[in-house]
């Protein structure tokens, strides 16, 4: 589903963020990217969603070489990805329902699809009763659920999560993780960058550890260390 082959990313002239990284992620996998701050976790995720282009090497996502993809194809790549972030990136002037609907609306989905799909995913993330609230009327955990609903509503093949529990307390994080696990069980590949050793240790899934851009450990059923 995802394949990195000798990928190097240098920002500007001399900031080496990712250094000759290669790994494969199979369909349906759940992978944690761990490592100290600045080790290149977010950069790897941004290379996969083509927000950045590799300086060297190839990145394959869902069968497509994203490095050689013309810019006009990038939106279609993104439609097969779901992105979630530490800061949720919700639109504060839209309700929960509208935030999720927005993701379908701007890729030209007809209204009946929106009316059908949005309540369905809101039910899935457990926010069916809060769909008319605005983001600032929700807790952090609920906001992250909205952002997961938005990422999942278009049934992506892959979820890319950059520290989704970074702002949440342990109990709330647990809820978010079980939601991601549920999504993973539907066959969606999940790649998640995190600092949160608690969630990594609780899940016992594949762990790829980075240090200064290098892969220093790639372990099935790993822990944080």
């Amino acid at each position, binding site marked *: 589903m995802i394949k990195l082959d000798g990928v190097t990313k240098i920002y500007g002239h001399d900031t080496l963020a990712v250094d000759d990284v290669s790994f494969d992620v199979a369909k349906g996998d759940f992978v944690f990217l761990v490592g100290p701050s600045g080790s290149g976790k977010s950069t790897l995720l941004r290379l996969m969603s083509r927000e950045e282009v590799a300086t060297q090497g190839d990145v394959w996502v869902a069968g497509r070489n994203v490095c050689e993809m013309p810019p006009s194809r990038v*939106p279609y*790549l993104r439609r097969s990805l779901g992105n979630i972030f530490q800061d949720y990136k919700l639109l504060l002037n839209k309700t929960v329902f509208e935030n999720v609907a927005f993701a379908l609306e701007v*890729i030209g989905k007809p209204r009946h699809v929106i009316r059908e799909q949005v309540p369905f995913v809101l039910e899935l993330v457990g926010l069916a009763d809060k769909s008319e609230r605005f983001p600032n009327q929700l807790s952090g955990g609920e906001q992250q659920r909205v952002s997961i609903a938005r990422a999942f509503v278009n049934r992506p093949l892959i979820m890319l999560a950059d520290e989704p529990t970074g702002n949440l307390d342990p109990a709330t994080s647990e809820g978010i993780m079980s939601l991601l696990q549920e999504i993973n069980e539907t066959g969606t590949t999940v790649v998640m960058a995190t600092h949160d050793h608690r969630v990594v240790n609780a899940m016992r899934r594949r762990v790829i550890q980075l240090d200064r851009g290098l892969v220093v450990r790639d372990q099935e059923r790993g822990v944080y260390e």
Partner: protein
Amino acid sequence: MLARIEYALRETWASFRRNLTLTLAAVLTSAIALLLVGATFLIQRAFENLLVQWRGDVAMIVFVRSDASPEQVALIDGTLRAAPSVIDVDKLRYLDKAESYAEAQRIFVGDPVTLSLLTPESIPTQFKVVPITQDTDLVRSLADQYRTLPGVEAVALAEDEFEVISTLSGFVRNVTLIMSLVLLAVAVGLIWNTIRTAMFARRREIEVMKLVGATNWFIRIPFMLEGLLQGLIGGVVSCAGVWALNSAWSGGVAAFKPGTGISSLVVPGGYLSGVMLVLLVLGAAIGAIGSAIAASRFLDV
């Protein structure tokens, strides 16, 4: 498809209302710039009516009485051709009654009284004379000579009637042209600024749109429509302005004594509609250009 169009229109309208002050400034500037462009066209056309009979370096016109015999016309023609060192005989042109009448209809477009007195039978025919020499005194002495020929009604010299107007028209054209170009550039800049501001205000939405895979065109089109609409509204306002100006002007001209030449400074209705159409197209164009420049900033993914 329908969902997309609905989305674009809804966003355009919302953005329009959100940036009302900037939008008004952009629309107003476009309108003023276009009004000036329209005025330039109209003034130029009005002057052209006055100048049409002197087009093509014509410096002297020999008017022949409408009742002159063919022999008299031939004699005048022969006399003109007998001075090849002064007159460019290749460019010597004779306008018969039909051609002279057609020309008079342009000159007296705003002067129906004079026009009604002219018929294709009663109108003087004319020789249009292009001199080779730069020596105006020589041309003038020739003119005095031609006035005495049988069948000649009058001889008019460009120097006496035309040059002041020609210079004036050139000056007015240059001034209005430069001013309209400057104002058009300002209008493009203001529309650019409005659209840029609108995009900045919605940068978080744009970020999310890119994240979930909206195409660049989908993101851009509402903004480009907004710019287009601003330019177009400016165009409509300027059309109203041009129409009002022209009506006031035509009314004022009609009050002048017939036959003074002022009456030529009127523009036919068909030309006015043409100018208005140009203004609408131009308005849409400056809107499209301004917003396209602003929106191209978001071309990169």
